[in-house]
């Protein structure tokens, strides 16, 4: 257990973005702690959790960041995107307005995140099919046009949560492991995977154990 927490071969920083109330914090708690809080507080500032995943025998640590969804909070989120290699752009399938804002979030990513960031569109709250305001086909269409993958999830039931995060991590992993080969052959490497960005993706072989296990 200790090993799985502290040792990793790759570290991926992922960010959760999307309008207020779409379920970002509960997706995070479902994925990292298998919890859903019926009585959760609106997120103010930044929250953060991690989970390790196995990919082809390698350990990938997903470090997932979560922040307030209200538009005006974007004034202070530039540091939030720093080093992120993946983004889950979440909307609420029962609230059309949160879907209509997807394009604005994509623009936000273009402005603040690394150009090579892997983005996944996530329609959350499939546990409320009777309230659906955005059809699967429509969202898939949008995702295709923007060249994103699309998943529908329910943080409440847990449906597809695992699959969506894992798929995004897999996508990034395949780029990163390719990039590692490329590094060896010194050809093109996406900027966020260059060794000088190693804070997010250490490429120097098996990563160090977290240097100081014993804190305080």
């Amino acid at each position, binding site marked *: 257990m200790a090993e799985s927490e502290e040792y990793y071969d790759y570290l991926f920083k992922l960010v959760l973005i999307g309008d*207020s*109330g779409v379920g970002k914090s509960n997706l995070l708690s479902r994925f990292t702690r298998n919890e859903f809080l*019926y*009585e*959760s*507080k*609106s997120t*103010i*500032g*930044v*929250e*953060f959790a*991690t989970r390790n995943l196995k990919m082809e025998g390698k350990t990938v640590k997903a*470090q997932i960041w979560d922040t*307030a969804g*209200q538009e*005006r*909070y974007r*004034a*202070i*989120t530039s*540091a*939030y995107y*720093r*080093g992120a290699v993946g983004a889950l752009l979440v909307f609420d399938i029962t609230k059309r*307005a949160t879907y209509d804002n997807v394009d604005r979030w994509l623009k936000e990513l273009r402005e603040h995140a690394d150009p090579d960031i892997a983005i996944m569109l996530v329609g959350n709250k499939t546990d409320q099919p009777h309230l659906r305001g955005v059809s699967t086909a429509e969202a898939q269409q949008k995702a295709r046009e923007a060249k994103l993958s699309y998943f529908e999830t329910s943080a409440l039931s847990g449906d597809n949560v695992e699959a969506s995060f894992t798929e995004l991590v897999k996508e990034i992993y395949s780029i990163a492991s390719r990039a590692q080969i490329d590094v060896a052959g010194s050809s093109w490497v996406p900027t966020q995977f260059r060794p000088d960005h190693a*804070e997010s993706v250490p490429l120097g072989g098996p990563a160090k154990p*977290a*240097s*100081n296990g014993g*804190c*305080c």
Partner: protein
Amino acid sequence: MVEENQAAEAHTLDRYGFIVSSDEHGPLRQPTRQSIEKEHERIQKWTWMLNHWQGFHHTRKFRQRVRKGIPEQFRGVVWQKLLASRVLYEHHELENPFKSVYSALLTQTNEEAAITIEKDITRTFPSHAMFRSDNTAGKDALEHNLNAFACYKPEVGYCQGMGFIDGVLLMYMSEKEAFWALRQIVVDRMPGIFNTGFPMLQVRFKQWNKLLSKREPAIFKALARHNIDASFYTTQWFMTLFIYAAPFEVAVRIFDCFCCEGVKIVFRVGLTYIAALKKTILKAPFEQVMVAIQRTPLTLELFESAIDLKLKSAEFALPDEGRKVMVR
């Protein structure tokens, strides 16, 4: 099973109205005989002070007593007096009962704000009896207050975080009184914190970084090395005055000091809190540092050791705040 659930629904509440089983606001102390006696003594002192308000509330003695905590039953009244919201309330709500400014605001709508407010109402104090999903009174008052404010100051509108401040106010005063107290905090005491673009929050970040680099240079450097931006952890402090995450008994003590002395208390508590985590911040890897900063409970002891920390007002005064201090 059903019976069990129903039994669980008959909640035990702490003295502040939070459900005891909830771990959200930390463990609670049981009052001792000694603490009860002490509280009675304080109540007498405060009764006297309220009767001699004009001559006393500017004194050092008064400030010291606020730092020791305003007695629970006087908090609502004293906060309103300190924020000078009582005067506004009396003027706008009581002088002409047929022309309540607040009631008039309730007839208006700020469409954009209302959408976000609605989402936040059940997410403000989910474990407090007044704001729980099965209680409408507190939630309605909160929704009314925030919507009224968004109409009152459309240039500020609604910003996530305001609800935590208003929620605390509503635990201690009526809906109308809370509205004017909120007005004083957002407009007068924390100008620009919630406005679009967060102009004042950005100023506070800079002031915080400056103060931290001066007082705790090693911590400042370690945080910089970890790329831990002030915005990650101080946003909650400056926006909600620690109400968002601190145990409630500490949050109200901080709020007492804020009403009396202003934003200084946020810097004092923040600096003391961060300094207490020094060992972790200097030695631990990034993730442990982040978790420590976000999850370490702010204890009463820590708060009490923060109160008397000497800070120069100039270190975080705004240009016009500086003037106010001079005038006093």
